[in-house]
C-alpha cells in the first residue's frame, strides 16, 4: 500500500509538471481558411484541431508541417521534437497518411538522415501518387545522396506537375551544382515570382537568389536581394548573414563583423559562427576569432549528443580551423553515408590538410565532376593540386575560384590570389 502510494506520488508529480493549460480555439476545423495565415496562427489552429479530433491522423500531419515551418522561421529546434512526436502519433493512427509520411521525410532530411528521408518520401509517394510535395523531399534526398541523374528525373516530374516556388528553387540548385549559374539565377527568379504560402518561404528563395548573385560577383544585386528578403521577413537571419557577407566582400570588415555578430546572437548556427570567425581572421582579430570559433566546437558536442549528423560542415571546419585528422574521419563517414559533391569536397580538403594532397585531389576532382563552379570547391582543389605538385592544374583551379567573385570569401579569396601570385612569381624566377 505504502509503496504503491509512494510510486504513485512521484508519478503524479512528474505528470503534473506542466499539464495545466488547456486552450481551445474556434474556427480551427477549416484548415482551408488558414491559407496565408501566419505560422503561429496555423499552429494554434491545428493544435485545436488535433485536440478536437484526436483520432484523425490528418490534423497531426498539418500540425507537424506548421511546426517544421516554424523551425525554418526561427531556428527553434524544440519544434523538431514536437513535430517528431506529432508525426509519431499520426503514423500510429494511420501508417499510410501521406501528409504525415511527407512530414517524417522532411524531418529526417532536416536531421541529415538522407536515406531515412528518402524512404519516407517514397512511401508518401506510394500512398498518394498525385500529391507533388513528397517529390521535393525525394529530389533533396537524391541530391544529397549524390544520385544526380535520378534527382534530375524526379525534378522533371515535379516541375511538370507543379511549377511553383518549391520546384523552381530545386531546379536552380540542380543547375548551380552543374555549373549553370545564369540558369540557376533564372530559375530562382521564377521561384521568387511564383511566391509561397509563408512569407519566410519567399524570403528564403530571395536569400538564395542573393547567394547566387554573390557567387557570380554581382554584389549590388546580391545586397538588393537580401534587403528584399529582410523587408519580406524582418529579422530573417540567413539574409542578415548574407548582407554581412556582402560587406566583407567590400572589405568593410567592421560592419560585416557587427552584422555577423548580430546574426550569431540571434541564431548561433555553426555556419554563421564560422563566417564570423573567418571574417575576424581576415580582419586580423585573431583572439576574437579564436574565441568565436571555439563555439563551433561546443556546438559540435551538442549536435553529437543530440544525434544530429552534420559531418560535412564539421569536417570542413575541422580541416580549416581544427584537427585535420578528425576532419578526415568525419568526412570519410559523410562520404560513406552520402557520396555527394559536397562530401567529396569536404573529404578532399580534409585529406589535403592532413598531408595527403594526392588523395585529396582525387576527391577534389569528384567534387567538380558535375561542372560545379563553387569557389570554395575550386579553392580547395587548387590548393590540393598545388600541394600535390601539380602547378598547372592548381593555377587553373585557383584562377577559376576568383574569376567570378574576387572576394568570394574574406579569408580564402586573398589566399587564393596570394597562391596564384606566388606561383606566377615562382615561374618567373624559373624562367628568368
Amino acid at each position, binding site marked *: 500500500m505504502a509503496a504503491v502510494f509512494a510510486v504513485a506520488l512521484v508519478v503524479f508529480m512528474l505528470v*503534473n509538471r506542466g499539464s495545466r493549460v488547456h486552450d481551445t480555439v474556434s474556427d480551427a476545423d477549416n484548415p482551408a481558411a488558414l491559407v496565408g495565415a501566419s505560422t503561429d496562427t496555423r499552429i494554434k489552429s491545428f493544435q485545436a484541431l488535433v485536440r478536437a479530433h484526436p483520432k484523425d491522423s490528418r490534423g497531426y500531419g498539418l500540425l507537424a508541417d506548421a511546426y517544421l515551418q516554424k523551425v525554418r522561421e526561427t531556428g527553434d529546434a524544440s*519544434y523538431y521534437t514536437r513535430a517528431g512526436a506529432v508525426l509519431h502519433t499520426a503514423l500510429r493512427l494511420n501508417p499510410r497518411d501521406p501528409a504525415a509520411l511527407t512530414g517524417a521525410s522532411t524531418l529526417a532530411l532536416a536531421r541529415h538522415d538522407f536515406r531515412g528521408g528518402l524512404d519516407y518520401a517514397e512511401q508518401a509517394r506510394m500512398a498518394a501518387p498525385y500529391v507533388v510535395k513528397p517529390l521535393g523531399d525525394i529530389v533533396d534526398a537524391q541530391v544529397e545522396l549524390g544520385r544526380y541523374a535520378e534527382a534530375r528525373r524526379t525534378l522533371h516530374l515535379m516541375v511538370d506537375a507543379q511549377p511553383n516556388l518549391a520546384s523552381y528553387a530545386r531546379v536552380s540548385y540542380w543547375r548551380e551544382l552543374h555549373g549553370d549559374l545564369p540558369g540557376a539565377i533564372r530559375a530562382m527568379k521564377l521561384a521568387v515570382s511564383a511566391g509561397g504560402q509563408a512569407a519566410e518561404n519567399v524570403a528564403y528563395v530571395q536569400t538564395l537568389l542573393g547567394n547566387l548573385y554573390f557567387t557570380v560577383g554581382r554584389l549590388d544585386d546580391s545586397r538588393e536581394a537580401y534587403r528584399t528578403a529582410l523587408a519580406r521577413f524582418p529579422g530573417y537571419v540567413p539574409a542578415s548573414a548574407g548582407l554581412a557577407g556582402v560587406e566583407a566582400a567590400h572589405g568593410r570588415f567592421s560592419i560585416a563583423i557587427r552584422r555577423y555578430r548580430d546574426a550569431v546572437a540571434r541564431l548561433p548556427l555553426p555556419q554563421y559562427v564560422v563566417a564570423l570567425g573567418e571574417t575576424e581572421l581576415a580582419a586580423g582579430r585573431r583572439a576574437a576569432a579564436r574565441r568565436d570559433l571555439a563555439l563551433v566546437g561546443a556546438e559540435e558536442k551538442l549536435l553529437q549528443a*543530440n544525434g544530429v549528423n552534420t559531418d560535412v560542415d564539421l569536417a570542413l571546419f575541422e580541416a580549416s580551423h581544427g584537427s585535420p585528422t578528425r576532419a578526415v574521419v568525419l568526412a570519410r563517414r559523410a562520404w560513406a553515408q552520402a557520396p555527394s559533391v559536397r562530401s567529396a569536397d569536404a573529404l578532399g580538403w580534409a585529406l589535403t590538410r592532413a598531408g595527403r594532397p594526392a588523395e585529396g585531389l582525387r576527391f577534389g576532382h569528384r567534387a567538380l565532376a558535375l561542372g560545379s563552379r563553387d569557389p570554395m570547391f575550386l579553392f580547395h582543389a587548387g590548393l590540393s593540386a598545388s600541394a600535390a605538385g601539380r602547378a598547372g592544374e592548381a593555377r587553373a583551379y585557383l584562377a577559376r575560384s576568383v574569376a567570378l567573385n574576387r572576394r568570394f570569401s574574406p579569408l580564402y579569396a586573398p589566399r587564393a590570389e596570394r597562391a596564384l601570385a606566388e606561383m606566377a612569381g615562382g615561374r618567373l624566377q624559373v624562367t628568368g
Partner: protein
Amino acid sequence: MRARVLLIAVALFALLAASASAHPLGNFSINHLDRLRVSGDRVDVTYILDQAEIPTFQERGLSSDAVLAKKRAEVERGLVLTVNGARVPLAVAGPGQISFPPGQGGLKLTRVVLPLVARVSHPRSVQLHDGTFPGRIGWKAIVAQPGSGTDVHSSVSSGDPTSGLRSYPKSALRSPLDERDATLSVKPGNGSLTAPKGPDQGEATTHNRSGDGFAGVFADAAAGRGVLVFFLLAALAWGAMHALSPGHGKTMVAAYLVGTRGRARHAVALGATVTVTHTMGVFALGVVTLLLSQWILPEQLYPWLNLVSGLMVVVIGAAVLRKRVASSQFPVPSHHHHGHHHHHPADGGRRTADISPKGIIAMGASAGLIPCPSALVVLLAAIAQHQIALGLLLITMFSLGLAATLTGLGLVVVYANRLTSRINMSGRLVAALPAVSALVIVGAGCVLTAHAVPQLV
C-alpha cells in the same frame, strides 16, 4: 519497508539523472519569466532567467559577477513597468542569484533570479513589458501573483507550468509560451487576484497567503486538480495504516495508558503528542528548505539538502539499530512489544504513577522524536521534485492519519483495559524485525548520501 525505500531511491536516481539531459527548449534558447505582484504601495517583480548551453558558452571566460551584471543591465534596459500610465523605474531589490547548472554535452546552463521592486502609490493600472533578449527563441512568460492590499484583475495567468523555468511542458500539442506583456487593473482590496487559468481559458481567483508555497498548492487544487484530493486522502490512509507497523510507540502508548489507568482524553492527548513530535523532524526539514530557498538558489541548495537528508537517514537508522541492540542486551519485561520505549518499561511497579500533562508530553516526545523514515523519504521525494509545499501537506495528512490510529488504539486500550497487554507478539522473527528494519534505514541513508556527494564535487 525495504521495498518502499528501494522504490523511492530508484525514483530519486531517475529524476537526478534526467536533470543532466538536453535543454527541452533547444540549446540556443534564452528563457525568462517575470513573477509580478502588485501591492498597495509596491510592485514586486522577480525576474528568472534560464539560459541554455550555447548562449552560456558564448559568455565563458566572464566571471559570474560579470555575467550577473550583464543580465541586470539587460533587465534594466528591457523591462518596462508602467503604473497609471507613467513609467516607473524598477530598482534591484537584492544582489540577485546566479548559478550554472550542468547542461548537455558537458556544457553549462545559466540560471539567474533577480528581485526587483518599484515603489508606487494607489496603483490602478499596471503594465509590464518584458523586452529583454529580443529576437531570442525560448519560453517567455509573465505570471501574476496576489499582492497585499489589492484586488487585481490580470491579463496574464497566475499559473506557471514551468515551476520557475525548471521544467517545461512536454506536450507536443503546445507551443512554448511567448508572453512579453501583462496588463493588470488594480483596486484596493484584500490580496485577491483574478487571472486566466491558462491561455484562452476561464478565470480563477486566488488569494494572497502568507506562505505562498502552500498558496500554490491550493491554487493548483482550485484549478481543478482532483488528483490532489485523492493523494491527500491516500496520505491520510497511509498514515493510519503505517501506525500499525513496528516502531511507532503504540505499544508504549498502550502500556503507558494501561500502566497509569489513563482516560479517553489522555489517550487523545498522547496520540496527538506522539504524532506531532514524530513528524516534527520531517516537517522542520521542509520548513528549513522553504526558508533557505528564499535566499539560496534551489540548484545550490538541493545537493546540500540531499547530503544532509542522506546523513540524517543514516543517523536515524544507526540510532534505531543501537537501541535494538541495547534492548536485546538488557531484556526488560516489555521487550516483546518491540517498540522503542525502554525508557518507560510497563512493569507493574509504576502503575500508580500520576498522569500529568508534562508526563504525557514527555512520554509522547520520547516516543515520537525519532522521525519516521517513511515520512522523511516522502518529503525527500517531494524536495527532489521541487514540490516542497505539496510534500509538507502530504506529511500533515500522513500525521493526521497516524494520530487517528494511535488515538484510536489508545481509546481501545482505555476501554478494553489490560486486553492489549496480554497480546503476545514475541518470537524470534518478530524480535529480529526491528533490527532488520533499522539496517534497511541505514542502507537507504548510505545510498542517498553516496548519491548526494558527486553533485557537490
